[in-house]
């Protein structure tokens, strides 16, 4: 048989109808915090297990910065008290940097959707990669028939001139800072910037070195942050829809 049309018909509809499903039990997602009291100072196992210093423990106050978190879940394995637990939600994106910092005591900060956004029905996106190609592959995956990002009115375009939003991946080392600024300058206003992946948010494992690959925050104003290393395609869709103002 050599008929692509037949193959397409036989494939049927494979697009996931259930939006933002949780990851399966076999998968590891980002860690989350419960109100179960932490054993604090005499433990500190999570702090030493974390490869990106995303966790701080001060007495029994535990804070976790998902903007630096790789999602390796070493802290979940290390935590004896059940304060740090696995979280398999794919609705991980937030609008402000401070919402990425969660704690076991204070109620998480959330912001309401800005009103009168011009992109609620459709968003044309220019992706700029700066050094995290797994994240780029997950962005590409969001366009396939399973996730089908186009059904939400989101399209990837070839030029910043056509784009409403700039989706950034990677930690933006020195040599990409100027091209990134020029890409942003070429976009018509109003325009959005969305940071996908921990390296785009904070530099992740790359931050603090001579290449100044510390993420996009100090370079452009960001409308939505999508944590994860790399984020799941559903999380990427979540971040883009959040920036459009289509989700609370």
């Amino acid at each position, binding site marked *: 048989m050599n008929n692509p049309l037949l193959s397409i018909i036989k494939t049927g509809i494979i697009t996931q109808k259930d939006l933002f499903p949780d990851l399966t039990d076999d998968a590891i997602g980002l860690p989350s915090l419960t109100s179960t009291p932490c054993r604090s100072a005499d433990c500190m196992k999570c702090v030493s297990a974390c490869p990106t210093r995303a966790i701080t423990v001060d007495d029994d106050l535990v804070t976790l910065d998902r903007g630096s978190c790789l999602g390796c879940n070493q802290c979940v394995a290390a935590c004896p008290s059940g304060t740090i637990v696995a979280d398999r939600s794919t609705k991980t994106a937030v609008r402000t940097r401070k919402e990425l910092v969660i704690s076991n005591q204070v109620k998480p900060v959330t912001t309401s959707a800005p009103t009168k956004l011009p992109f609620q029905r459709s968003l044309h996106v220019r992706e700029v990669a700066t050094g995290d190609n797994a994240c780029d592959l997950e962005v590409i995956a969001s366009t396939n028939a399973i996730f089908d990002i186009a059904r939400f009115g989101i399209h990837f375009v070839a030029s910043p001139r056509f784009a409403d939003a700039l989706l950034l991946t990677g930690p933006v080392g020195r040599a990409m800072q100027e*091209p990134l600024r020029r890409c942003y300058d070429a976009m018509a206003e109003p325009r959005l910037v969305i940071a996908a992946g921990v390296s785009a948010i904070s530099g992740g494992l790359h931050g603090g070195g001579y290449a100044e690959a510390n993420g996009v925050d100090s370079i452009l104003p960001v409308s939505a942050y999508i944590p994860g290393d790399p984020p799941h395609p559903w999380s990427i869709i979540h971040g883009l829809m959040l920036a459009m103002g289509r989700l609370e």
Partner: protein
Amino acid sequence: MMNMFKRVEETPSALALTVKNWLAHRGRRFGHLTARANGKGQFVIEALALDRNTGGGLIITAPLTEGELKYPSLTPETPAAHWAERAVGDLFGIQATGHPRWKSLILHSDAWPDDPAPLSSLERLHKEPYPFLEVSGEGVHEIPVGPIHAGIIEPGHFRFSCVGEIISNLDIRLGYQHRGVEKRLAELPWQQMRYLAESAGSDTAAGNALAHATAMETILGIEPPPRAQALRTVALELERLANHVGDLGALSGDIGYSACAALFPPMRGAVLALAQLLTGTRRQRYYIKPGGVARDLDDTRRTALVQGLVDISRRLEELIPLVLENPAVIERMEGTGRLSPTLARDFGIVGPAARASGSHYDAREVFAHGVYPGRAPKVASRTTGDVLARAQIRVDEIHAGLEFLTELLDDLPKGAIFIDCDQEKLPLDAVGVGIVEAWRGELIHWVTTDRTGAISRYSIKDPSFNNWTGLAIAARGNLVADFPLCNKSFNLSYSGNDL
């Protein structure tokens, strides 16, 4: 099993000849070249020469005389060294004299105007604007493309010199994504290096993690349990399968064959779902680590994996002929982007791209990693060196990989999945070389410790580091409009190259 490398010393002036003479024997190839401080206030140039006959090779160290920050270039005799020498120029400020195309490779002079060379703190070379190779003659025009491209793809600059519609030369300038990976790796406690090592090229997490683990285990002198070696191999082969399947869809996309561009990506997704079943993440992160793997595969999940492979195999049997038995596809791919076996050999091209140009080199048959080289699938090889051959090699490897994966999973050794080595200190003056056949080809992590047991150099050679030159050669004489197809047939990593 470990890869054994003999360390010898040589003078800088004799280095080029020593390497040339050593490589003159059958089955030997140039591996990599880098520099490091030797702890006695000196810098050394080090060449890694690989022997396919023994699964090991030679590390030739040439200490530079103090104050003498140059050495005679290896490139005139050993062209495969040309990018490595330019990288040493950028990162160390050490010059390869007589290099036929001496210019910057990684560091951009406008992004690092006044900084010292990052890995040596010496004065930087190449402060001038990047000199693109100019082609002169009647009707020659240039097309600059990038760094930011039209698709969802990494940044790099392509400078085409064209006569009419035909590419007469392509100068590829990368380095945009330089993040300082190698320096950071040498600064981290060794137990935490694996997170960064595997994201050196994050689309090759299993390959990078395995190369890192193999190098560190050589240094520590530990041997992971057989079950861990088998599970690592499953991870590596799933990564190859996912990317090869994805490439067939991407190649279809670049010739405007929308049906297959839509049909293959979900198949890639099906493989990633199996990867998630095995490792916990679609991108196989945090799984392979020095000493073994992070989690076991119970029997329920093993059965699900085997069943998943059967389903994928059945589906691909139907889909692959849609591409490779379609005359319209063959017409576009045949003869396009040809890379001759001679040039592929001279420039040390690796992986599917090399095997499409007559090479039989597959690191799985030679070097110790996972269950290799004891058991390895049959090596695929083609001779035409065009886009079609590169696509066919992927198909051959998909078939071989599916069969091999099922074999591995049917016969998983029992026992431990991990040897705890986190408390170990690194030995002094040791070296470990991890060589992995990743999905793009030979990937090397080369780690050296100093006389205190600290990492003195962590050098990574991504397969793309060899193969970008192959793309530049293959593009010559082709239509500009066929470049995306040539490019996709190599599908190289920019960030793995830029580090």
